[in-house]
């Protein structure tokens, strides 16, 4: 656009000059056109040090350029016309390859606004960094031999880590490879960490570069004594349990008043966190963003009830059908959120980096302290509200017997609407706080859903304090179990408890017994 305006302007100027009777000659170099291009790999990262040959279509002109650190190359051509840029497949730096469709080169017609882009394929490779744990420090180790062997034995190469501890082996192609540390030839004082394998089998797909790490040196992660660790985990467990309880409250009350098991409750948590995050990134302070997020979730809960669940109840849709509808809604919302914000972890802008405060052996960031306090206060208030207030009484009456409650003058639909709004707000708050202690991700709520079920069922479905107690127990259970079992299995005991409770005492710890079978 600018260029066109410039051209029109220069034409006008030229016309004026002619009118003025002054002969104008264009400067000689104006005929030259600059060709700018970039070389990237398939991940979009710039590839420096790539020689690029640029030839004019008729072959009368040819020159070479090398990309700079930003992957950009520039050549000056004799003038407008079509030029072809090619990368010599034998001359590219290690790690990238010229794909077949780019080997004939990419042509561009000058003058042009756009930057020519050459995309290179990644060579399959395995790389890693060898770090040696000495006390608290991680030092890179040079001279560690790493052997990469293909499974059919046709390829065998040894790499040695450099001063930064880094090593890379480029592979002949995709396939199955065995990577191992040559433990016989390790430098003095360096050893593969006890309990870790010095040998890994990896499958490399086409164009994949993979990182393989071998932990070296002493394991320093057990510096905390078991008792201190248990204390730290207990505090973390309480924090996690309180957040679960916030989310569980809504789920439990919705089940109590309507009998609906809401599989889309996890997405309410995610939406709370996502709204807070997006407003926070847009410039609003997190505290304000959190308030907006909680209100948004409350409105969303209410809108759901008015727009969907109430009409469905009026149509006498069965509870199981409604449950399957919540599953559809959960899938839809989860992937709609991923569509909007992408699959990566997001972080808030405020309160991210905080120095931990030490209480004896326990260390807590101030944000965790505040979120624990806030969650606890809200939970106690909510509990008191359910037990003491008129609305709370009405809620309990509706969960007890909706027909009887309605006959005694309680507006059942109004109570249910209130429960949805309230439950949505609580889930949204849980999401905001969870985004603070973990990170914001599209599936963060869904990952917690089963734990929330566990908490709710443990405490007794439909009771407010039951959800609080059950969730605290589940939170503690999940974090404390990492004392004995690997962290990636930490949800399993909680799920097992969920199953056990449903089998043995389906009404939960605090629930009243009723016929459920």
């Amino acid at each position, binding site marked *: 656009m600018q260029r066109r305006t410039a051209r029109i302007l220069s034409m006008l100027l030229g016309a004026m000059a002619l009118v003025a009777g002054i002969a104008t000659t264009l400067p000689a170099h104006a005929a030259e056109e600059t060709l700018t291009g970039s070389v990237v790999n398939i991940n979009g990262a710039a590839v420096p040090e790539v020689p690029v040959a640029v030839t004019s279509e008729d072959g009368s002109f040819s020159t070479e350029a090398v990309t700079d650190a930003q992957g950009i190359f520039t050549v000056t051509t004799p003038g407008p016309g079509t030029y072809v840029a090619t990368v010599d497949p034998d001359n590219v730096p290690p790690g990238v390859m010229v794909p077949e469709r780019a080997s004939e080169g990419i042509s561009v017609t000058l003058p042009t606004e756009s930057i020519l882009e050459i995309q290179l394929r990644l060579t399959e490779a395995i790389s890693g960094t060898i770090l040696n744990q000495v006390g608290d420090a991680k030092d890179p180790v040079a001279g560690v031999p790493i052997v990469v062997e293909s499974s059919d034995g046709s390829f065998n190469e040894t790499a040695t880590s450099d001063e930064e501890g880094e090593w890379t082996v480029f592979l002949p192609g995709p396939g199955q490879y065995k990577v191992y540390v040559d433990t016989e030839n390790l430098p003095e004082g360096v050893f593969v960490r006890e309990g870790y394998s010095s040998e890994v089998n990896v499958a490399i797909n086409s164009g994949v570069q993979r990182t393989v790490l071998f932990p070296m040196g002493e394991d320093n992660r057990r510096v905390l004594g078991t008792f201190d660790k248990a204390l730290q985990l207990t505090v973390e467990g309480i924090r996690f349990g309180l957040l679960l309880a916030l989310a569980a409250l809504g789920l439990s009350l919705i089940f109590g008043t309507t009998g609906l098991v809401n599989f889309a409750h996890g997405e309410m948590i995610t939406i709370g966190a996502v709204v807070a995050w997006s407003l926070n990134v847009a410039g609003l302070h997190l505290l304000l963003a959190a308030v907006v997020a909680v209100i948004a979730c409350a409105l969303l809960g209410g809108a759901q009830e008015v727009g969907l669940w109430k009409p469905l109840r009026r149509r006498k849709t069965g509870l*199981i*059908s409604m449950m399957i509808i919540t599953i*559809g809604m959960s899938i839809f919302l989860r992937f*709609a959120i991923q569509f909007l914000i992408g699959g990566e972890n997001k972080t808030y802008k405020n309160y991210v980096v905080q120095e931990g405060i030490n209480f004896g052996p326990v260390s807590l960031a101030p944000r965790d302290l505040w979120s624990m306090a806030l969650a606890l206060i809200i939970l106690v208030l909510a509990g008191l509200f359910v037990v003491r207030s008129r609305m709370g009484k009405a809620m309990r009456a509706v969960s007890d017997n909706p027909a009887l409650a309605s006959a005694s003058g309680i507006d059942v639909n109004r109570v249910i609407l209130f429960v949805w709004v309230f439950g949505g707000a609580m889930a949204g708050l849980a999401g905001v706080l969870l985004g603070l202690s973990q990170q914001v991700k599209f599936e963060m709520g869904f990952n917690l859903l089963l734990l929330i079920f566990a908490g709710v*069922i443990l405490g007794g479905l439909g009771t407010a304090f039951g959800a609080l107690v059950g969730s605290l127990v589940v939170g503690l259970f999940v974090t404390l179990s990492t004392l004995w079992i690997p962290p*990636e*299995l930490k949800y*399993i005991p909680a*799920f097992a408890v969920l199953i056990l409770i449903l*089998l043995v005492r389906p009404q939960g710890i605090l629930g009243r017994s009723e016929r459920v079978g």
Partner: protein
Amino acid sequence: MDWGSIASQTLSALIGWEVVAYCLAAMGLNIHFGYTGLLNFGQAGFMAMGAYGVAMGISTFGLSLPVALLFAIAWTVFLALLLGIPTLRLRADYLAIVTIAAGEILRLFFRSASLSEWTGGSDGLQGSPVFTTQFKSLNPYSGGLNIGPFHLGQHTLWVVTVGWILVGGGILLTWLLMRSPWGRVIKGIREDEDAVRSLGKNVFSYKMQSLIIGGLFGAAAGMVIALANSSANPDNFAPQYTFFAYTVLLLGGAARVFGPLVGAVIFWGSLVLLDAVLKNAVGAGLIPEWLMNENQIGQVRFMMVGLVLMLLMIYRPQGIFGDKKELQLDAR
């Protein structure tokens, strides 16, 4: 827009292994949910048992292919017994939560790094020794399928052949079972458990048999997935795949012998069609970049599944070809 290639992709997908896998998984759910009224939300767990039964049987325990198949069947039955004995007395929504939790426990175990020596951890089992070698060596085809718009590779063609034979056998089995006295008892349990009990039938035992048969269908789906991909990956058995199988079942119509088949063809066919059309439209610049890029097509596909599941249950719970009288969703 390259309509020729879009049509060819969609038509090839209609006979592909994904349709076979979804069909088999939904056939299992049809027995559980459609006929018996059992709300099994852990079908992905049964699928994982089938896939890992074959993969671990061969790769980890060094069994031959037929023995590994028997092993997979045996431990699927074992899982069904383990899951069923305590839970089949629970009411529908509790059973749903228990089965989804059990499926997740299984997946987390298969995924865990501490068991990766046997299960391959989060990468899954794929090679050394490759568990599909024996299956591939039985392949009678010398090349892939290239007739008209249908294109399948040599290995896929072999998987698909076996798969469609399984589907055919499964449909026949379901049809025979459901017109037998056994099937009438099962449907009776769905309608009114107490009435069946008062006729002197052992309801628990019938439910258990139904759980095992449907679970084996799920395991067969898992085996097809593992053999077609030459890999057993824990993330292929996440809970959402159970719900996809439910969408398939409800699309075709629950408690219908051909329901899962019709559902799977429509489900997968429309997903592939949507995918191909969107890819083409984005590639041709028909959809502006700010609205959607190529990486977001996968999410649109999942969003559609969720939306279809919701709309089906709201407006047409009996599915496209189902019979409303057959489907009593709220038994108990």
